[in-house]
């Protein structure tokens, strides 16, 4: 490489004009930088938007319940209270009990951690795979692209829910992580396709070409130039995938297709429906309502977050809110990422 041949020459060339005083960068500075860049500012922006604010608060509540809550609140067991207690009767079981004397609130609370794990694993699996396949296909083009595109085409063409049901029966997954992945087993495909088409545009951006011209390696271009651009989109879709995981897992539990070894609101629904006769007016509607509310608020939090999130990653908004100056006003904010709408 050039620099090795003409080390000194290079040095000279760059020693022009006003000599720069030594620029020190301490580790603390860097850490502070990272903190400002990745936590403080996104947080600030997120907080500025009502949707993210509410969404994040809701999720925070779930995380709190899923971690601290399970510590403080007793685990559900049979006969821990009187059977079939209505809600708001006693402090012992505020939301009532099932017909085998399990505390409904305890059931709801102790289903949270598994659900969060499921969401995370499903969301991460779907988005990471989609980003990987989408960017590589889009950026590399050619045969790689054709193969990957066909692959995702096929994955996309298999009907999601029926496929998941069959798979659920085949492998009887018992761990929340596996269930999360199972549910998003072909969810990534649509996402990969749309990421691919975005990458097709991004790779034509001149800054990508500039990086190529500098001889930057392909993985580095993908990670530094391509992926940050689709990040808002990816995160929005992470939240969407998470919501899909919530909906699908609860649905499958409700239908009794997934093994009951993992606590889940769907199992509560199923119990309320098939055993407590909640639908038949046995006065046990509360057993149905509690998990429903748990599901709906979680989904609500995720949607709100998804809707508000693209702003967080838009550097324009970020700097504006972080109080830095902006010299240009003419450009509009990037149009919001297209919303892939699938239940």
């Amino acid at each position, binding site marked *: 490489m050039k620099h090795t041949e003409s080390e000194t020459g290079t040095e000279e060339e760059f020693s022009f004009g006003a000599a720069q005083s030594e620029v020190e960068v301490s580790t603390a500075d860097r850490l502070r930088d990272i903190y400002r860049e990745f936590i403080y500012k996104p947080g600030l922006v997120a907080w500025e938007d009502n949707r993210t604010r509410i969404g994040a608060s809701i999720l925070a509540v779930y995380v709190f319940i899923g971690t601290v809550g399970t510590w403080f609140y007793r685990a559900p067991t049979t006969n821990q209270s009187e059977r079939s207690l209505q809600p708001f009767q006693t402090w012992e079981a505020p939301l009532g009990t099932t017909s085998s004397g399990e505390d409904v609130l305890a059931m709801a609370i102790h289903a949270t951690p598994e659900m969060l794990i499921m969401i995370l694993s499903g969301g991460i699996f779907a988005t990471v795979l989609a980003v990987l396949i989408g960017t590589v296909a889009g950026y590399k083009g050619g045969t790689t692209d054709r193969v990957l595109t066909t692959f995702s085409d096929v994955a996309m063409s298999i009907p999601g829910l029926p496929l998941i049901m069959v798979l659920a029966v085949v492998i009887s997954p018992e761990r929340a992580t596996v269930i999360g992945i199972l549910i998003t087993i072909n969810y990534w495909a649509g996402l990969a396709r749309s990421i691919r088409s975005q990458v097709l545009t991004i790779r034509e951006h001149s800054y990508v070409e500039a990086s190529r011209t500098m001889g930057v390696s392909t993985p580095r271009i993908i990670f530094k130039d391509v992926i940050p651009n689709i990040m808002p989109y990816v995160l929005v879709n992470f939240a969407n995938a998470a919501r899909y995981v919530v909906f699908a897992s609860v649905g499958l539990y*409700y239908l009794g297709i997934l093994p009951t070894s993992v606590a889940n609101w769907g199992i509560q629904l199923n119990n309320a429906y098939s055993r407590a006769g909640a639908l038949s007016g046995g006065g046990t509607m509360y057993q149905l309502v509690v998990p429903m509310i748990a599901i709906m608020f979680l989904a*609500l939090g995720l949607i709100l977050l998804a809707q508000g999130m693209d702003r967080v990653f838009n550097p324009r908004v970020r700097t504006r809110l972080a109080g830095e100056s902006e010299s240009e006003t003419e450009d509009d904010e990037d149009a919001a990422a297209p919303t892939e*709408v699938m239940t």
Partner: protein
Amino acid sequence: MNNYFIKRTGRAVLTLWVTVTLTFGLIRAIPGGPLEMLRARLVRQGVDPTRIDAIIQSRQEESQPIYVEYYEYMSSLLSGNLGESFYFREPVSSIITDALPWTVFVMVTATIILFAIAIVWGAIIAYKEGSTFDTVSSGLSILMSSVPFYVLGILFVVVLSYRFGIFPARYRTSPGVTASLSIQFVGNALYHAALPIASIVITQVGLQTLAMRGNSIQVLGEDFVRVARLRGLSDRRIAVRYVGRNAILPMYTGFLTLIGFNLGGSVILEEIFTYTGIGYYMFEALINRDYALMMGIFLVITTALVLSVYIADLTYGLVDPRVKSGDSSEAY
């Protein structure tokens, strides 16, 4: 006809084939084959154990090496034969012919209605961006999207059917109503489909509305809308031909693919409403390990998905003059 058409068709066929093969393999991997399920069922029916063994024995011969099954399945598929349902002892095709129209009816109607609402509502919100109406509508949209359709379905059943008896909780039609083109029949079918359709529409309309809102706001900011106003065009024309048309276009493929997607979702929906469409039979087939039926329905839903994407790709050029068929108009 032309290159793109052929290529795209080839890809659709390839996709179908791979999907069929894959699902074929998958379904065979389900633990507990049809015989085990049959045994379980006979036990429950109280058939005496020695006879159960005899029955199982006599059925054992039916299974063959998997490649033979695959070959036979593929070749009979090509001749239009989907095999016979193990559980129902009926040709799969006749079950599907009976069930599919109902599912398609529910899902297509639901999807059309929800898009119609989303388009109008989304456009109106966009026009009133920033107003209270916008805030309330957007909030409502989000709220509606946070309810899974089956939860709403259950609620509907509990409240509207069981509690108040306004709508039927199950069936495609009332007992005794026979299929015909009479008003009574159609009305009855619609009446029974009302809740399934409503639960799809209500839970899915929100996100589409927000998408439409976003698109419309974007279009409203375009120069050509401003120019159109300056040219003195009527507000109506601008709303329809300018804003509407351009905002709807990006949703076109979404519309077709959502139909396909919803067909898959019918498995849960029809189970809740005891609506004997393909989703319902899919579930039955799964429970009873009825491979042929499962494959058949899988195939139908897959074909629907592949077809809807295929149609979306091929027709996008027709609805959007900017894209000639064959341009980079892939649905996803």
